[in-house]
């Protein structure tokens, strides 16, 4: 019998009509690293929660089949047995804190106290976990005052410190900077050597392709495939499961390079580089649509601090324009803080910000609301009405549209994110990905001159990202200014023309998207990485980088030349 056995697992949430899991069967060996993937609402989070018994014991509802871990029947086991065996890191970092600890250190120790770890051992483990996630510097900070990515690190550390035998992670790195998420993956990968089993739900395909032993592909609450990354991702119908194959795989496919041993396309960077070898492809840069560029914000020498002691933004000057502009940088660099300053939500202690010549600092947020739209990093900070339509209409009604106009605009905005079907649903009955889209629609409906997106792609699958990309392109075409904060470099390369790299409250680089990803020292300092395809081009020693698979072409062979 395998270490983890899932047999005929079925589950239906209370007050719903359809099953979220419709009969899953698979088994996992001790020490395996399993990547779970699939489109939004395919059941990944539900499965993750079933591993720790929250499904069904917390939600109740209807349950069938079983999960056993090392002989322990999870649905029937006691809380004590479960939480010393399995640990789960949630999808949304904001609500994972105990709410009873006022420092990061105490927060991580919270679980250890509950499972009766002796004091010295507790301190040792907390320190170890903090080191692993690079949060030792925040040890005494209040967890609720951290940036999104810092909070996610604390949440992961809190579970790691409990040293479970099986570690289940639900999109644990969605808000981490690229190097940070690489570090997390490496850290949990080393844990498998100690016999710890890892199950990770993830939309970052390249990551699980590299680290996972096997991929569990879910679709509509059923197992669509359960096999090695190479087999799963080289299926030619993979797109129909709502996910893209790894960029490396697509590139190899385009260049027609297979692994000689297996005849399959490579799925990791090193394999792809090996397959391509010295046969460096041609780069044909795609011409981007060009629109007239107009200046927008003029930020001059601003400084800002939350507590009057440590400056989060320091002497920052910046001229923005209507080109889609991405702000990237490591966790806690001050990206969210900067856009809140632009939006007038925070006031700089020094310096000035103007928008098209008008002063922003002196104006109320309400009066700026018809000019600047801002989609919050956490949709829960923004969404409050009890149905989607009212939520989206709230903004337009406030800035003086009649009910009919507001309704019309809202319908349009909802159709742009393809959520018309959800207009009568309570936003909190939607998943995180859809709720984020509702937040986006509610800002789009206000038709502002500038739209700021704070990490719009969190929790989105391929389709969701495509919808957001389309929204951004349309805004650009209509001459609206778009500013985005992102950790997804592929998405940056795809949608943005100008990129600003931030670190520690200052700007390290600011350039055209094609150039910015060649600034290796700046990228490194800001804990960033170039997009996957650019990484591949670097790995094979190409002198040029491409930003998408479309931009590489097979070199004409010698034979064809003649």
């Amino acid at each position: 019998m395998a270490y983890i056995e899932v047999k005929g697992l079925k589950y239906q949430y209370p007050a719903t009509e359809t099953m979220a899991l419709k009969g899953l069967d698979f088994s996992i060996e001790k020490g395996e690293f399993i990547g779970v993937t699939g489109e939004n609402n395919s059941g990944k989070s539900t499965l993750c929660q079933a591993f720790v018994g929250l499904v069904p014991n917390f939600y109740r509802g209807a349950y069938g089949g079983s999960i056993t871990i090392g002989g322990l029947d999870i649905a029937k086991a006691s809380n004590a047995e479960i939480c010393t065996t399995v640990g789960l890191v949630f999808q949304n970092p904001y609500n994972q804190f105990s709410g009873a600890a006022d420092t990061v250190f105490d927060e991580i120790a919270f679980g250890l106290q509950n499972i009766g770890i002796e004091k010295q051992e507790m301190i040792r483990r907390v320190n170890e976990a903090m080191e692993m996630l690079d949060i030792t510097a925040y040890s005494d900070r209040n967890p609720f005052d951290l940036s999104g990515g810092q909070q996610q690190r604390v949440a992961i550390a809190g579970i790691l410190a409990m040293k479970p035998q099986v570690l289940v992670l639900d999109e644990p790195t969605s808000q981490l900077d690229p190097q940070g998420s690489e570090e997390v993956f490496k850290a949990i990968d080393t844990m498998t050597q100690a016999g710890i089993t890892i199950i990770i739900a993830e939309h970052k395909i390249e990551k699980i392709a590299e680290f996972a032993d096997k991929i569990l592909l879910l679709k509509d609450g059923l197992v669509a495939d359960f096999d090695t990354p190479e087999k799963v991702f080289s299926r030619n119908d993979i797109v129909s499961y709502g996910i893209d194959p790894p960029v490396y795989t697509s590139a190899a496919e385009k260049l027609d390079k297979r692994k000689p041993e297996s005849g399959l396309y490579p799925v990791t960077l090193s394999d792809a580089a090996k397959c391509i070898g010295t046969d460096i492809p041609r780069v044909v840069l795609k011409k981007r649509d060009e629109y007239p560029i107009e200046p927008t914000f003029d930020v001059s020498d601003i400084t800002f601090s939350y507590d009057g002691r440590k400056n989060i933004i320091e002497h920052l000057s910046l001229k923005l324009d209507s080109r889609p502009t991405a702000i990237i940088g490591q966790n806690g660099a001050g990206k969210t803080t900067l856009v809140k300053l632009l939006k007038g939500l925070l006031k700089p202690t020094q310096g000035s910000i103007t928008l098209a010549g008008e002063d922003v600092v002196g104006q109320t947020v309400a009066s700026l609301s018809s000019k600047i739209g801002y989609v919050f990093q956490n949709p829960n900070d923004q969404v409050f009405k009890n149905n989607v339509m009212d939520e989206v209409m709230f903004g337009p009604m406030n800035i003086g549209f009649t009910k009919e106009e507001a309704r019309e605009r809202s319908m349009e905005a909802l159709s742009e994110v393809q959520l018309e079907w959800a207009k009568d649903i309570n936003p909190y009955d939607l998943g995180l990905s859809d709720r984020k889209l509702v937040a986006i629609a509610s800002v789009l409906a206000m038709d502002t001159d500038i739209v700021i997106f704070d990490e719009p792609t969190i929790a989105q699958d391929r389709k969701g990202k495509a919808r957001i990309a389309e929204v951004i392109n349309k805004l650009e075409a209509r001459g609206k200014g778009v500013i985005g904060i992102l950790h997804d470099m592929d998405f940056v390369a795809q949608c943005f023309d100008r990129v600003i790299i931030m670190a520690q409250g200052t700007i390290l680089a600011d350039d055209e998207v094609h150039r910015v990803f060649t600034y290796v020292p700046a990228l490194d300092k800001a804990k960033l990485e170039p997009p996957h395809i650019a990484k591949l081009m670097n790995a094979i020693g190409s002198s040029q980088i491409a930003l998408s698979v479309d931009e590489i072409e097979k070199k004409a062979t010698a034979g064809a030349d003649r």
Partner: protein
Amino acid sequence: MKSISLYVDKNSVFHNLHSFTKLFYLLTMILVPAIAGNIWGFAAAAAFSFLMLIICGLLKKAMPFLIFTITIVLIIFIVQGLTYPGNESVMFSLGKVEFYKEGIMYALRIGLNFWNILFAFALLILTTKPKDMVEDCEQIGLSPRFGYIIASVFQIIPQMTGTMSTITDAQRSRGMETEGKLLTRAKAFIPLMAPVVMSSLINTKERAMALEIRGFNADIKKTYLYTRKLKTSDKVCLFLMGLSILSSIAFRVVKWLILK
């Protein structure tokens, strides 16, 4: 994040005592004068705690406690000075109104006791982190669940006020006005209140799940990151306080015997 607890982060005689010593101090200050039953006892106790507040440099922080009680003590003086059942001898009169000595003495006794308890309470609250006291109590048997409720209130209220300002930002950034006539302001109550309430209530679900995963429900004996032992100073204080309770009892008994 601004803390809502009145705890003053400082170093003082009282800060260095164990929370139980401070709790026992509150108890002693309530019991001793009450048992001794002498008006000077109340005065001495109140004066002692007041002195301690000064020594610990907490007088300014104790002001809110005092201000809250001034009116009520005044009321007691007036009501009892006028209407105390045992009133016989007139002490002074304001125009037609006559204040009686017995009533005033009674009011003085209540007033002094009131302040006595208040100052002792202020000493406890201003020098003890709620979280520490809860943890200490848990370690001698308070249910960790109840402990969690108290400890998390102190963490959650500031978090909710924080969320509220974020949400106020979000609403204002979608064009809502919060100033103006009573009706405008009253109308703003719901869009301000509802999102915080909704999101906090909704967050309870995830927080509850997070707690379960982190062993909150596990029937394993909990250990503690911070264990505060009774120091020698605590033991000395406890001993002295115990002694003063005993001597107040002795005082009362002797008084009773003499009267007899």
